[in-house]
């Protein structure tokens, strides 16, 4: 027995739309299996992972908070991935954005300058992420160095830089030697939107980014250009689209959105710099981007699913004693399932036995 693929002539549009849902079902089934192996009931796990976090307004706000960095980073990544550029160092751009964005709040700490600090910090965060993404972009555009490897190496560099800063020069002198900076002024933090939770204005920024990206990707020449470069590089040259410029453009977009995500995390609900500002959002966002089929609306949906299961995973750790890594595992599995179901939409799959093929003539002509 072996598998044979043949391209589908016409793909039913609904099929394409349903493919991520199919992928989720597939990943869910596999996860249930693992949970059973770990000695828990999948039913109970489903309650905790999926239904639990949807229970009350507080939890829903937590989901939204978790979604913000995922949506921002994944939207940026969708530009890169559409252009067939594999920026997998969003985590590093996120961290560097958080570092650069924190400079001003740190310097002005205790001076009570108010929201202007926040606005400039957000811009500086974007700038930081963008600058950091320029390194892989330059190396790719001018020296043809694989952006996959270079962007990833920089993740470690950024994390070590942050670690050094919060243990060294930026450490809170009155922080009992904890590796963290002082708490930023409340005035330089993102405003909280609701009284009964932590939902902050980052949600609004993420919403704006999604809207703008939708327009840019589907209606502008720039969006067209990104698609052409990713889908047929020679045709892009024929259209007069410079691949170098596009590499820089999509990396800057992706880097600045990752940087924005970083500083929003800091100013939104952490309130200071410490080594663990990220919960792997830069990598999880890759799953989100694919789950959303590289479209902004899809990314919203994908981020919701991933945020839901992440919070569910935290609850499950407490309530079911299921390890937190199960969530990472599930997300990796989910990405694999998304890719598999993408394949199933473009190819028809047949099981073929290795026995001789029938040689009987067919009935009609």
């Amino acid at each position, binding site marked *: 027995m072996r598998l044979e693929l043949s391209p589908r002539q016409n793909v039913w549009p609904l099929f394409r739309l349903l493919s991520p849902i199919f992928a989720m079902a597939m990943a869910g089934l596999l996860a249930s299996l693992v949970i059973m192996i770990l000695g828990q009931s999948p039913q109970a796990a489903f309650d905790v992972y999926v239904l639990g976090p949807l229970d009350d307004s507080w939890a829903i706000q937590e989901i939204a908070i978790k979604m913000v960095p995922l949506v921002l980073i994944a939207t940026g990544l969708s530009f890169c991935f559409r252009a067939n550029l594999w920026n997998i160092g969003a985590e590093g751009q996120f961290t560097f954005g958080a570092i650069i964005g924190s400079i001003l709040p740190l310097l002005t700490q205790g001076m009570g300058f108010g929201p202007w600090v926040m606005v400039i910090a957000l811009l500086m965060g974007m700038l930081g992420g963008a600058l950091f993404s320029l390194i892989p972009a330059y190396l790719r555009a001018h020296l043809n160095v694989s952006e996959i490897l270079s962007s990833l190496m920089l993740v470690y560099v950024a994390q070590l830089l942050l670690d050094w800063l919060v243990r060294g020069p930026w450490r809170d002198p009155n922080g009992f030697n904890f590796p963290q900076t002082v708490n930023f002024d409340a005035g330089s933090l993102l405003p909280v939107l609701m009284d009964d939770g932590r939902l902050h204005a980052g949600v609004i920024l993420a919403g704006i980014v999604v809207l703008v990206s939708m327009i840019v990707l589907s*209606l502008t020449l720039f969006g*067209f250009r990104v698609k*052409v470069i990713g889908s*047929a590089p020679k045709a892009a040259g024929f259209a007069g689209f410079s691949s170098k410029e596009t590499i820089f453009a999509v990396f800057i977009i992706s880097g600045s959105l990752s940087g924005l995500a970083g500083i929003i995390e800091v100013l939104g609900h952490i309130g200071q710099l410490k080594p663990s500002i990220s919960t792997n959002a830069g990598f999880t966002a890759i799953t989100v981007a694919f789950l959303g089929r590289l479209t902004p609306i899809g990314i919203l949906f994908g981020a919701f699913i991933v945020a839901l299961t992440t919070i569910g995973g935290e609850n499950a750790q407490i309530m079911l004693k299921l390890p937190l890594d199960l969530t990472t595992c599930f997300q990796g599995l989910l990405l694999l399932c998304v890719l598999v179901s993408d394949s199933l939409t473009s190819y028809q799959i047949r099981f073929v036995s290795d026995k001789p093929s029938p*040689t009987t003539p067919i009935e009609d002509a």
Partner: protein
Amino acid sequence: MQTDEAPPLVSMRQIVKRFGQFVANDQINLDLAAGEIHALLGENGAGKSTLVKILNGLLQPDAGEIYWQGEQVLLKSPRDASEVGISMVFQQFSLFENLTVAENINAAFTEHDTHGFGVRALADRIIEIGEDYDLNLDPNRPVHTLSTGERQRIEIVRALLRHPKLLILDEPTSVLTPQEAEDLFLTLEKLASGGCGILYISHKLHEVRRLCSKASILRNGRLVATCDPKSTETVEMASLMVGSSVPELRAPALHKIGDIRLHVEALSLPSQDIHGTDLHHINLDVHGGEIVGIAGIAGNGQSELFAALSGERLAQEPRHICIDTLPAGLLDIESRRALGAVFIPEERLGHAAVPDMRLSDNLLLSRHGTDNLIHGGLIDIRRSHRLAHDVVLQFDVRSASKNPYARHLSGGNLQKFIMGREILAEPGVMVVNQPTWGVDAGAATAIRQALIDLAAAGTAVLLISQDLDELFDLSDRMAVIYAGRLSQTLPIQNLTREMVGMMMAGSEVDHAA
């Protein structure tokens, strides 16, 4: 089946092959005797390639049987085919650029084939067989340093080293000069006289008449006739292939030859890729109202010249390329389009069009800068749909849906769309590379007619092609490109196929350049 003393060497019975809905081979029968040179004729898309892929084990038929010397065989891979004695020479070569000639040949062998001789001995065998059949090769050269003709030699030597009883050749002369083609025919005749059966795929009727003793003609996946090409009229075979009378080209309306619209002067450009060709000191003028042809074997700098003229690669100085007297050597492709030039690359899917985009988006590809399609960065989607639809209507682009994906069009229809897209931009200069490559006869005639009419309307057309018939049919003047050097341009009346063939093989170029 035949159970007499002498069954045919190979016999294909009721072969059916489908790709999805499309029936590529519909109950095809074919018999070939030892020592016979048998032509498989048909247009692009008629099912020739599918049939020989089945015979070579690359594809499995959905129904039907293959008999080898009277016994039924199952050919599940090219290995199986080569074991019974079937070898194939591919049109788009099955070679590995970075490997040596000997490694390329060895790769196709099994332990069984090399039984008795190791890798060292293989090199000797390559040289030996090269001497026998006049197919000289250096076993230790990497393939990317070889010319197209030499690459074909590797394929042939690879096939011959396995002592085939049946040799299949897919359009072998498309990469050869007329003289090289004649040499190949001599080799094939020598093989056939030794008892080897030869299945010769072509759409060039004069070659088939010259070489083959029998011809099977395919059309739309069906076998429509089997005949003796030497005693059948060319016109008759042609109409059997096409299915109707062969369309004729209309002569252009009387028109004047105008000023120089494309001027190339001392254009030299080193290749960026180790597998590419450097351009050396190219001089060329194309006047408004004329078609200038550039002949040459594939891989002699045609794509590099196209890239330099289109602006996909910039020249070294502005004056090297002038469009309507304006120095354009350092302008990018969009700026050259703004000067009224259009370009049609050889590769349709992936270069001239994006396979996974609809025609309206593919229209944007080359016309986003010149047709008022972009307002403040936003695409005027309605306008791009309308312009694409104009092309579809005026150039008879046939497809199942109104605005299909480029990859869903047949080669001919996609090429008509691409031609139409560029012609409706009302160009002053057109540079086109291999416009009818792999296109059915009807579309090819339509495309050639469009080029004639375009020139008659005053456009300067530069036609790069490997099809000598096409060049002699369309060109007013012609030059030959060889190893990145371009010959003098001569009026078509002063040229013969033999002269051009010599120039394509590299002679004469020195004094002409």
